[in-house]
């Protein structure tokens, strides 16, 4: 056991792996720093490049991108009041007022140290908790896995979207798309419309790039073209107290950092909630526990620390359900499943038995990514600040071209580019009609596991309709599914009847679905 752990960490410490993780962190911070690009978008664009790396380097690279993007998203949020990622929205409430006071560099340093603290806390939790949880998860059979996926999809559809109905429709459509290809039992093509290229099934790359990156750019261009808004010019103060984040200040934020890291880790470990919920919740808790809550929203260091520690903790803790159950905690983890599969690994409890050395190498890469984020953030802070000034007219055409080439790189066929465009068009309409394309992608990713577990249940039970009734854990999980559906439906009916004004509220996919009451 110890030898396996050491061998895994030794793999992670190979120079090539460290360089790829470093590259990932730089790419992630750069992507996050550019307004309009977020972590999942950057991961979707980078997955085709990871084909050319070893499995450990590829996952390390993508984890680096994810971690870098969480911190990078705070840069435009603090400097321009335009959060690069939805989870950085809470950071702007105190970060931008500081930037307006000339303390932008200090706010960025607080964001960096808080991100690294939250990330380190969650990484430690991942290392300590994932293996024991996976050994428990090994006792789960196909009925429990089937029921667990039902719960996960219901949670994602109910908490990650504004409408449970539309969330479940999107997830069901994702399952339908996931059924395209060779049917596992008969080994014959299903739902391919006679198109040979579809017999391999639809790859995650065109779906990820099309729905996460391309459609987002098309939506942003729609808002940009014809808009006349200009960016504010932020200047940095030269005084040391306005630039540096001292040890005393760090220690004064200690309680907030620990609390927010814990909140972020818990939220990240639950499927569907995601980083925006973690950062808003942690900010809310920081306000409630503060001796001077009135200073929040005006440049309070603890506000930045709470939001950043919580959202960065999600990056590592979202790997817990991925490693232990094979279920993605958020969109970035869902994309990582695609990368694992490409490299011949199936995330889940069996990974600890079959590829233990690989898992510990990934742990090593996660730790290295945290350290490199600190180094890259400190060394390139001023440089990354310049990235927020890249004009969209330069950036967006480059991203469109990169999306097209990224889709081509997945299997070297123009058909994948067509698929990518088709899915970006679908995501565009889903956004316009207020459907969650995230539910669709998660439904698509979970569909094969869901179908396989159902097939196993049916074959093992010889089509016994009471198979689930004999498994108490499966019964509890299915009951939980129905409870979540009933509770969400009841809450929606209540909100509908009590506040008719809310029905006309504008909707935005960048905004989180839940906001606490005490936010500024």
């Amino acid at each position, binding site marked *: 056991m110890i030898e396996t752990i050491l061998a895994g960490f030794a793999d992670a410490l190979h120079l090539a792996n460290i360089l790829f993780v470093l590259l990932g962190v730089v790419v992630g911070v750069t992507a996050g720093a550019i307004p309009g690009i977020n972590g999942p978008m950057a991961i979707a664009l980078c997955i085709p490049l990871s084909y050319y790396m070893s499995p450990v380097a590829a996952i390390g690279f993508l984890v680096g991108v994810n971690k870098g993007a969480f911190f990078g998203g705070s840069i435009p949020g603090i400097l321009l009041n335009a959060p690069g990622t939805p989870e950085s929205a809470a950071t702007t409430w105190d970060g931008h007022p500081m930037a307006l006071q000339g303390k932008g560099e200090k706010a960025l340093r607080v964001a960096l140290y808080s991100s690294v603290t939250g990330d380190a806390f969650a990484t430690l939790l991942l290392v300590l908790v994932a293996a024991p949880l996976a050994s428990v998860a090994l006792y789960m059979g196909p009925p429990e896995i089937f029921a667990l996926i039902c719960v996960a999809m219901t949670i994602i559809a109910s908490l990650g979207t504004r409408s449970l109905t539309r969330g479940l429709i999107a997830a069901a459509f994702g399952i339908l798309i996931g059924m395209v290809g060779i049917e596992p039992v008969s080994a014959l093509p299903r739902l391919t419309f006679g198109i040979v290229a579809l017999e391999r099934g639809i790859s995650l790359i065109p779906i990820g790039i099309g729905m996460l990156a391309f459609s987002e750019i098309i939506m942003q261009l729609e808002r940009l073209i014809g808009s006349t808004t200009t960016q504010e010019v932020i200047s940095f103060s030269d005084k040391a107290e306005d630039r540096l984040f001292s040890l005393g200040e760090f220690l004064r934020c200690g309680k907030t950092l620990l609390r927010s890291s814990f909140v972020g880790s818990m939220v990240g470990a639950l499927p569907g909630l995601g980083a925006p919920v973690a950062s808003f919740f942690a900010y809310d808790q920081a306000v409630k526990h503060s001796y001077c809550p009135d200073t929040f929203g005006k440049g309070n260091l603890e506000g930045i620390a709470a939001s950043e520690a919580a959202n960065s903790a999600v990056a590592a803790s979202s790997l817990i359900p991925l490693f232990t159950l094979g279920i993605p905690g958020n969109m970035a983890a869902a994309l990582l499943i695609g990368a694992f599969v490409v490299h011949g690994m199936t995330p889940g409890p069996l990974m600890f038995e079959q590829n233990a050395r690989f898992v510990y190498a990934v742990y090593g890469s996660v730790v290295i990514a945290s350290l490199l984020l600190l180094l890259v953030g400190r060394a390139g802070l001023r440089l990354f600040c310049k990235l927020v000034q890249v004009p969209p007219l330069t950036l*967006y055409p480059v991203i469109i071209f990169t999306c097209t*080439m990224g889709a081509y790189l997945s299997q*070297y066929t123009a058909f994948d580019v067509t698929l990518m465009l088709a899915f970006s068009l679908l995501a565009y309409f889903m956004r316009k*009609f207020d459907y969650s394309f995230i539910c669709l992608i998660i439904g698509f990713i979970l569909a094969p596991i869901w179908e396989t577990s159902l097939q196993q249940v049916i074959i093992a039970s010889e089509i016994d309709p009471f198979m689930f009734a004999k498994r108490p854990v499966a019964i509890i999980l299915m009951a939980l599914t129905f409870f979540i559906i009933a509770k969400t439906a009841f809450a929606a009916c209540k909100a509908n009847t009590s506040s008719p004004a809310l029905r*006309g509220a504008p*909707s935005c996919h960048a905004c989180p679905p839940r906001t606490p009451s005490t936010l500024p």
Partner: protein
Amino acid sequence: MTEIKRDVISYGFVAMLSGAFLLWVIPAFSPEYPGYGAPPTLMPNVAACLMLGLSLLGLVRTVLRRRRADGGTADGVRWRHLFLFFLPCGLMMPAMHHLGFIPAGLLFMAFIQLACGQRRIAPLVLVAALPVLAVYLLMRYALGVPMP
């Protein structure tokens, strides 16, 4: 477009789509039941039934809501914008096949920039040339990928 109109259109479309899947696509494009395990049509049928049931439920709720209030406004689809960006993207791969990677890439980038609103010549040329050449070098020499 009001939110209610948007919901009626979207739920109606989903209901029709799932109906088409249940009645035509799934039976026509699924293999025969091999005699063991679950039928290949089971999961697609479950997903399509879920979509149909939920969309009809949503439709009923929207119609009932319509009687009580008008609801807010929703952002409409901008067809011209979609056409402007999707058409060149759709034509890029065939153009690369016929004209070659670099000429087609340069034309594509120039067109997209013009569509975005870029009117200054120097940035237009630079932004058209640099990414295309960088991607060409990366794909051709670093990754050894067969060019489109």
